Structures are given as C-alpha cells and as structure tokens.
C-alpha cells in the first residue's frame, strides 16, 4: 500500500482567495488568537517562553486588514456548519489578542469560505451575520477526484 500523504488543502484555498480578492492590502494567514496562557504578568515565564507557549492558542485561517473593517476568515472545502461556531469563538477571542490591539477599533466581518455547497449552512450563516462565500480553488479537480462518493457533496438537508 502506498504511503498516505497529508495535504493542507484549506490552507492553500484561503491563500488563493485572499490573494486573488485583495490587491495591495495587508492580510495574514493562520493567525493566532486569544490570550497567551499563562498570563504574562504572573512572572513565571519570560517573553521567549511565553511566545513558545503561545502555540497552544487557537488559529483563525486568515485576517484581512481593510481600512474600514477586519475580515475574519475560515475556509472549508466541504461546507461544515461547525465552522460557524469556530468563527464566533474567534471573534470573541479578538479582544484578548495582544498582537491585534491596533486593529480592534475596526468592526469585524466574519467570512466563511466554502467550496461544496450546503443549503443549511448558508441559511445559518445568514442568521448569524456570517458572510458565506463560495470559492472554487485552482486545485479543485485534484482534490475532488480523491474524495469517495458520498463526500463529494454536502448533506442536502434543508431547514
């Protein structure tokens, strides 16, 4: 049996989207959000140790720094309603994120990037103020051809 290889498709997807959608704008992929644990002021760890511990923080797929708002982006190839909860959590963690303090006066727009459609997700996203954007990455055929039959479409359950 051949060796299985892991491919971070969604990392590539979000990179393609931000790059193709925004010109000369600052954007960042794989951004840590939330407070560094333990707190810096308890004196237990120095600055370097705290940075190392920060790897346990959560990651949002991308942030786009527009002049009038921040876009908080999660990407998923096959639509998954669980991503909506993730976006809500990440938004709540923004005020605790030291590195993002200069931008926190800006309003936040949550964006869910997906490829294979799910009608339930689109409805739920709208209700929660999440902008759901369908995006077909350049590697779609390569990825899709590796899926088994039932994974090639989202559940067609409507609400």
């Amino acid at each position, binding site marked *: 049996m051949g060796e299985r290889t892991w491919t971070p498709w969604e990392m590539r997807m979000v990179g393609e989207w931000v*790059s193709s959608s925004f010109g000369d704008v600052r954007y*960042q*992929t794989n951004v840590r959000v939330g407070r560094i644990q333990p707190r810096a002021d308890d004196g237990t760890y120095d600055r370097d140790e705290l940075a190392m511990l920060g790897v346990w923080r959560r990651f949002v797929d991308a942030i786009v720094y527009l002049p009038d708002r921040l876009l908080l982006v999660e990407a998923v190839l096959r639509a998954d309603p669980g991503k909506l909860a993730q976006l809500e959590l990440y938004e709540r963690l923004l005020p605790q994120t030291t590195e993002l303090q200069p931008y926190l006066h800006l309003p936040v727009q949550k964006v869910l990037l997906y490829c294979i459609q799910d009608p339930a997700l689109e409805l739920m996203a709208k209700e929660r103020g999440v902008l759901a954007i369908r995006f077909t990455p350049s590697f779609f055929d390569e990825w899709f051809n590796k899926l088994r039959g039932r994974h090639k479409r989202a559940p067609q359950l409507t609400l």
Partner: protein
Amino acid sequence: MPELSKPYEIYEWVDGATEQWTVLSWELGQLEIVLRERAGTKMIDVLRIHVPPEEKEHEPYYWDLTSARLVAQLRGVLSTAGKGAMRISVTAIGAAPRTHFSVTRVPERPA
C-alpha cells in the same frame, strides 16, 4: 513534479522566528531527503522562492521551503498574486515537526 536543481538552500526555522522576503519568482518541485527514523529516502514537495541579493548573504539567491503547511499557504498566496515582486513576512510558531506558520502579505503602500 520536477526535481529542483542543486544546490539546495533549505531554510531552517526556529520557533518564533520571523523572516521578511521580497519574492521575485517561485517554483515548485521536489527534492530527496534522508529519513531519520528509518533507513531510506523520500521525495518531498518544495517551494523555492527567489529573493533579491540584498536579502541573502550569499548565492544562490533563493530559499527552499519544505514544510507542507508553509508550502500550502505560500502556494495559495503566490499563485494568484499579480505579476511582480511580493513582500511577505513568515513567522514560525512551535517546534519541528509540528511547526505552524503565519504568512503576512506586506503591502507596498501601508495603510
């Protein structure tokens, strides 16, 4: 994917390190690595980014990036970017082999 020409210039990341580069061009290929845990070799995907001479101390003026996570992010960012150089900043988070990377597009005209 073609095997990249030698010499290899594999960038060794340290936890917490940040590097800023101007990517003039890039190419995707493979190179052969020797496995630590068992005898043998393996071909891995590599992204080679070409940078200006002033951003690297010696020739060749490119870096080979081998992390699957980093290659995926950069392929996405670089593949659809417009023609011309692109300033990026990369930060390594965590120790190998589980290093995560954050890639920032650095605009030419800061807001």
